[in-house]
């Protein structure tokens, strides 16, 4: 068939090397290197586990039905609540939408603005995180899953399923600890004096199931170097950052306004859910040790928690009000795997009471 002009005679040159054997050798060496890396990872305590990606979160957000029970909040809601026990106690398996290191307000707002939703929300509150204004990292973390839920492409869905297939089988596919960017963080180079650097996140210490139920690793539940690294990793994260030498006044004022507005925004969201017949319970989960002292000092109960509960009027459970809910967190912030099951068993009656069941 006649086509266009045929004056295009450009051909890319190919370097004169034995490419066939080069390709085979490269593939073989890469496969061996990957295998070695997998063996190293398993020998160092890593096991195949799903990564808690925005795609996985979006999968579960899509599964929310009008009458679902939904868990939102921070990592304590993921580690400390056992979905099996909640299912037994509440008659329905909850959907886990809490996100580590996040302010869950954007998720609450999303559910409140979903006209079909009239279910139940179990919401974990860590006051410092709940009040995080944009663009603070906890707030942005809270948006990650939502953004993916709203804008997910077919290609991303397919990639997510292929990724899960591999993550279930390979221990080195661990986003928290074993990516190249995480490995680079292990290189120790002195910093300049007075550097304004964000604190490092604690290392990997958990595994996650397909329903986002997260279990603390045994190595972290027992005293040892991993537990210490996690413990002392929390302290700088929960210490308010020092104000830098110079921050534009309008930036500071804007942030203060946003923090103040969060009380009203939360109350509005709760009101919308109540008006549709939905329910919400706020929960303060256990913490321990130095982290407990730090949180109590920085965000005392009489401050943010009390005002939030007053303004929303929603039922709430503060763990320290109930002696049977006081547990020791091995790394100061979350419960060990067995304790999380026991804690949930003891929490269920309070939830039933709060929900009028």
């Amino acid at each position, binding site marked *: 068939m006649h086509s*266009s002009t045929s004056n*295009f005679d450009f051909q890319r040159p*190919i*370097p*004169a090397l034995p490419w066939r054997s080069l*390709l085979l050798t490269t593939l073989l060496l890469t496969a061996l290197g990957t295998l070695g890396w997998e063996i190293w990872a398993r020998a160092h305590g890593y096991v195949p586990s799903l990564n808690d990606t925005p795609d996985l979160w979006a999968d579960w957000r899509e599964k929310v039905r009008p009458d679902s029970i939904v868990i939102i909040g921070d990592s304590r809601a993921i580690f400390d609540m056992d979905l099996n026990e909640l299912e037994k106690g509440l008659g329905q398996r909850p959907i886990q939408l809490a996100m580590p290191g996040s302010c869950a307000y954007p998720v609450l707002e999303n559910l409140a603005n979903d006209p079909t939703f009239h279910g139940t929300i179990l919401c974990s509150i860590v006051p410092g995180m709940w009040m995080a204004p944009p663009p603070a990292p906890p707030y942005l973390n809270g948006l990650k899953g939502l953004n993916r839920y709203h804008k997910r*492409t077919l290609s991303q869905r397919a990639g997510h399923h292929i990724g899960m297939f591999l993550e279930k089988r390979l221990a080195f596919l661990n986003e928290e600890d074993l990516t190249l*960017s995480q490995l680079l963080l292990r290189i120790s180079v002195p*910093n300049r004096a007075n550097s304004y650097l964000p604190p490092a996140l604690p290392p990997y210490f958990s595994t996650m199931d397909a329903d986002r139920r997260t279990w603390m690793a045994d190595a972290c539940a027992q005293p040892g170097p991993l537990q210490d690294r996690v413990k002392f990793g929390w302290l700088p994260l929960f210490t308010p950052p020092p104000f830098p030498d110079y921050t534009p006044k309008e930036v500071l004022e804007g942030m203060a306004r946003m923090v103040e507005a969060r009380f009203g925004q939360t109350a509005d969201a709760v009101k919308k859910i109540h008006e549709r017949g939905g329910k919400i319970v706020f929960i303060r989960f256990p913490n321990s040790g130095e982290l407990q002292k730090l949180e109590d000092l920085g965000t005392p109960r009489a401050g943010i928690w009390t005002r939030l509960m007053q303004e929303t009027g929603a039922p709430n459970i503060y763990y320290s009000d109930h002696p049977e809910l006081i547990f020791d967190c091995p790394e100061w912030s979350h419960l060990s795997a067995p304790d999380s099951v026991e804690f949930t068993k003891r929490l269920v009656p309070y939830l039933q009471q709060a929900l009028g069941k």
Partner: protein
Amino acid sequence: MLFNSLTFVVFFALVMGGYWTLRSWNARKNLLLVASYVFYGAWNPPFALLLFATTALDFWLGARIAAAPAGSRKAWLVASVTANLSMLGFFKYGNFLLENTKWLLAQAGVTYAPPHLDLFLPIGISFYTFHSLSYTLDVYRGTTQPTRSLRDFLLAVSFFPQLVAGPIVRAADFLPQCDAPPTPLKNRLQWGLFLMSLGLFQKVVLADTLLAPIADNVFGHPSPVLTLDAWMGVFAFSGQIFCDFSGYSTCAIGAALCLGFHLKDNFLFPFAAVGFSDFWKRWHISLSTFLRDYLYIPLGGNRVGAIRASVNLLIVMFLGGLWHGAAWTYVVWGLFHGLCLVVEHFFRLMTKGAAWKETLPVQLALCLVTYLFVCIAWVFFRATDFPSAAMLLGAMAGQIPVGQAILSGREILQVALVIHILWIAQWRLRHTTLEAAIARQPVWLVGAAWTLMLGAIILTQGSGNAFIYFQF
């Protein structure tokens, strides 16, 4: 679908398997066409319809241009240019135009509150519009004959390796390759796979892992930073955007080669550019040659006197800046390059024939100066608005005494190392090609480098971002 995604790995393996299994050339092209539309539709299926409609329109207009008598050919061309640029303008510049109209009217005391058009920008619209437009322009100029095959033209515009982020492949360079199946070429597949590995390494390891977080930190910091941090952030962005965009082009060239198609280079070691005109012969070559052939030369090029040629340059770079995005910061980036090109033009006139210019120390110094000015221009390209750009430029100039040190020692070292390696490697390769350079290396070294690149890509675990140029 991103090149740096697991979905693409599976997609490409399936397409390759099917393509080389099929015996009929027509069946192979049909497969590529379907695959290209699946590749594009995987973002947002309705946009595939838009792509089809604009391509089919240009196919029809190309035939009309060729068949029309001399007097009315121009009208058909104007129809094509208007249709293409209107679509681009609507999706990409609609809100920008409304906002600027509002501002202009406000200056005249008129209050106008335009509605915000809630538009999704079709991925890669700037690229495929130019792919398609090049066809009617070339048919009009008589440098190419119209194709009778709608399928071939649809494939030329939508060919998935170059569809969404270039290189801008002109139909005249692609359509002849559709005439017959690719001739056998030894090691084409392996070399194509090597190029794809190199491109992915540039993108996910160098750009996304080593440089992007640092650039994002500096450009996104709400308050002033120290001079060192400001420069490191800008250097990091210069490396990031090169590795990101050049990485995409290299992947595209490699993927096309695996399928038997030959795409031209889009980058030729731009860090080694000596002067801005040299820079634009090395950076995004398919765009700079497009603008040169279809805009600069028709405006009169440099045949119309120094002053008029300078104005032409500024017009071209103004539009080149605007092509990158609907914001005045992109326009300033383009005009900054335009001004540098004009200054360089006069500098060359004044120093014509001077032998000292060609000595190694002077060439090196000019290369460094070019790089620094290119970096300054990147501030406007990357900054979200003018106040942010001004704050960063102030910090780079040491004019802000209260800046913060926001980069760690490791990050500073990381940027310094990567940029030095990029700069030295490109300087050494400036008079050659990648192919020639690789052919000179011992086999073991190429194998080791390839293995390391693949290993590093696996280590990143697919956590990379979208390519920067997708948004254009």
